[in-house]
């Protein structure tokens, strides 16, 4: 992240650039060159956002999206974490699952949507399945490489001091690979967040932010769309900065394990 001394400057440039972008947008919207239904003014979008929050529909949509993401993510973690760690620790597991993972990884999660619709029907199960698929691979690959990246010296020191397999696992391997695991979680969430929006659009159920956007298209409500987009961006941003940032600060950063200049 950027250096701290020019915090004031970064705040100033943030404001300048946002104001400028808003002014350009507002100018375009008011110029009348485009239909107001397609390019609503900022005030209209704010109003749609405000109304949606007040009558409780937007929070309800956001909650069902979050529910799908979190369940799917939890499933993905439940599968990928043990498997990834197993792959890092035991050669046979690695040589069995790695080719499968490499073959499945290049298939975008949204390509499974039609198939999942047929298998699981429209609605929650399909969306959760897609989220799970999207989140599994970053988690798996990071867990696998994290375990392999644990310094072998630490393992030998641990065993020399009489740590059993269990202690070794909990006290050395898990903390040692934690930076990777957290990075994997972060990537998994980002992928899951993309996948859930797409899945909600395609496998339309009645609730969810992706569905709101898709449904608003039918009625030419660009203001509702932009409001829902703002909520999607906000939630994604909040997770990225607050949840994962805090997780990292509390664990690996405090233990001094994170190298400077993370990507």
């Amino acid at each position: 992240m950027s250096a701290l001394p020019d915090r004031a400057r970064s705040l100033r440039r943030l404001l300048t650039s946002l104001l400028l972008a808003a002014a350009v947008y507002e100018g375009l919207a008011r110029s009348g060159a485009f239909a107001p239904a397609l390019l609503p003014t900022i005030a209209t979008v704010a109003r749609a956002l405000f109304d949606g929050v007040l009558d409780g529909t937007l929070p309800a949509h956001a909650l069902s999206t979050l529910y799908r993401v979190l369940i799917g993510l939890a499933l993905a973690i439940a599968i990928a974490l043990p498997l990834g760690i197993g792959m890092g620790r035991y050669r046979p597991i690695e040589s069995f699952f790695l080719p499968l993972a490499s073959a499945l990884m290049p298939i975008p999660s949204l390509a499974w949507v039609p198939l999942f619709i047929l298998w699981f029907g429209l609605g929650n199960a399909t969306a959760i399945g897609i989220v799970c698929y999207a989140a599994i691979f970053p988690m798996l690959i990071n867990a696998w490489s994290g375990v392999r990246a644990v310094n072998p010296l630490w393992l030998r020191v641990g065993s020399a001091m009489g740590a059993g397999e269990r202690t070794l696992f909990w006290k050395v391997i898990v903390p040692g690979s934690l930076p990777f695991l957290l990075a994997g979680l972060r990537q998994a969430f980002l992928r899951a967040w993309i996948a859930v929006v797409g899945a909600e659009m395609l496998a339309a159920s009645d609730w969810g932010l992706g569905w709101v956007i898709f449904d608003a298209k039918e009625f030419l409500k660009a203001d509702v769309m932009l409001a829902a987009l703002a909520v999607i961006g906000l939630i994604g941003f909040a997770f990225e900065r607050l949840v994962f940032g805090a997780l990292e600060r509390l664990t690996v950063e405090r233990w001094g394990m994170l190298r400077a200049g993370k990507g």
Partner: protein
Amino acid sequence: MVGRAPAFVTTALPFIVVGAFWEIVAHLQLFPARLFPSLETVASTFVRLTVSGMLPQHAAGTVLRLACGFALAAIVGVAVGIAMGRWRLAEDLALPLVSMGAPIPGIAYAPLFLLWFGLGNVSTILLVGFVSAFPIIFNTWTGVKAVKDVWVRAALAMGADDRRLFHKVIVPGALPHILTGLRLGLAQAWRILIGVEMLAAVPWGLGWMIFGAREFLNTDVMLAGVVVIGAIGLGLEKGVFKRLEDFTVVRWGMMT
């Protein structure tokens, strides 16, 4: 990626096991055959669609769209990224917008683009370009910023003008980052293109093909399509960028 030269057998084994498992489930008829076709059905559908030219045509549509969108993103993204890295004003203005736009899932913009630009190719290409531009901008900007000051000063001291400095120092110096950005951008473009094709009702495209197959319960067509999608994805990952990297930065000894 796999490392440690695996013998052919160890690579093939997992696929044989999973394939056998799939076959058993399919032939036991635990699920309706329409929804869970056996592998030979999928294979024969694959051959039938390939011979009739359907599958290649859909695949060509998808790849062409990907290429157009990605080319757009690469040109705009690298230009914006370099401008941001070189000029403070551009950085100040663009960075907040880029960092706010990046975390919004690209596919969320799809309906908006469809509304603005209509169903079909234009929306799809613009959206793919828009989405994959973000990582390209970010990485190019980082790359230009990471060019060593000493190199720039040395070149200036040796009398390089702005143009030469740009071509001979800044671009090669930033190239590893730029290539990383392009690779990430392509991966991102690929991940949403299939979804966007389903939404945008493009005339030819793998996404549209597998989504349309849903109406007729053609699970075999879907699976054949997914196989092609996976193959293209793998090709993009292994074929295109590995080659480009080997040819430039690896050869120059900037990356291993």
